[in-house]
């Protein structure tokens, strides 16, 4: 199974594979979302509300955004590894990204459970 590649034993593969797996999840979500929108075609506020209200939609959307943020985290970490060679500065930049992504995550949860 791929799970063992995501452990500490594979420090390089873990990052590389996570980025690809999160990309797959996002691609699947987007396709499903487009198909669902084509079938249901919500026209007014009530229809949209009914579309986004079910728990499965909220959970799937939350999963999508979690994958998006993880994907972004890995990508930014890669860029920082390539361009920022001062370890202290890199740690601060990484922390800023971490904080921003965590805030986004809470914001998404707030939005999803307040519609």
């Amino acid at each position: 199974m791929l799970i063992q590649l995501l452990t500490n034993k594979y420090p390089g593969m873990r990052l590389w594979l996570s980025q690809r797996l999160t990309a797959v999840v996002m691609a699947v979500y987007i396709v499903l979302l487009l198909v669902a929108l084509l079938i249901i075609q919500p026209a007014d506020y009530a229809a949209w509300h009914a579309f986004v209200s079910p728990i499965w939609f909220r959970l799937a959307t939350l999963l999508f955004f979690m994958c998006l943020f993880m994907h972004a985290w890995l990508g930014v970490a890669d860029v920082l590894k390539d361009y920022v060679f001062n370890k202290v500065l890199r740690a601060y930049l990484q922390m800023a990204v971490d904080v921003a992504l965590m805030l986004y995550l809470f914001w998404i949860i707030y939005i999803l459970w307040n519609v």
Partner: protein
Amino acid sequence: MAKQMKFSVYRYNPDVDKKPYMQDYDIALEDEDQMLLDALIRIKQHDDTLSLRKSCREGVCGSDSMNINGKNGLACITKLSDLEQPVVLRPMPGLPVIRDLVVDMTQFFEHYNSVKPYLINNDPLPETERLQSPADRAKLDGMYECILCGACTTSCPSFWWNPDKFVGPAGLMQANRFIMDSRDQATEERLENLEDPYRLYRCHNIMNCVEVCPKKLNPNAAIANIKDLKIERAKESTDNKPVKKLFGIKVL
């Protein structure tokens, strides 16, 4: 009939020059001067202070790799008729310049050595040679032809960014060449050797290596193959283990 051709060549002699500079040459070429290396030798007849490496003059030794009009290549197999004038010649980027077009390739070869580019086989030596089926031998095609000129590695931005940590396309292709060799017994160690976030995974598929390789090889495919093999090995290793089940679902 002599033909004039313009060149702009990177010059730097650390003993004399404070800074590198570009020197222009307007050289009369003879009919037999077909390749860029011929022109460089012609330039050297007029100005013997110009330094460059050369040896086999037929694209086999990899000595005269340089940056030609912005793209890495071998001077000896680059046709003069294909080049736009003035031909801008620089040393390969990303490595320290020793003088003019000569670069210090120590870092490049250190990475090459780090992948153990030789057969590791602990079986007793057979009387003649270690045999290989034609199919197994064919797996080395497209990799064993590498002449280690360094054109790919020095055109790779990932190598420019992390020259001390990222092995680079040439080294990684040689790693894959021995991983794929049916006679080699150290596949596991070789894969483990490349398992940190830098040595292999700094490759972002920029593809400059494929673009510049004078032997038309594909280091990017070799790098992708190493990643695929890591995944395959992980699958195989769990196939042999007893399956762990959680609530009747296969988890590991």
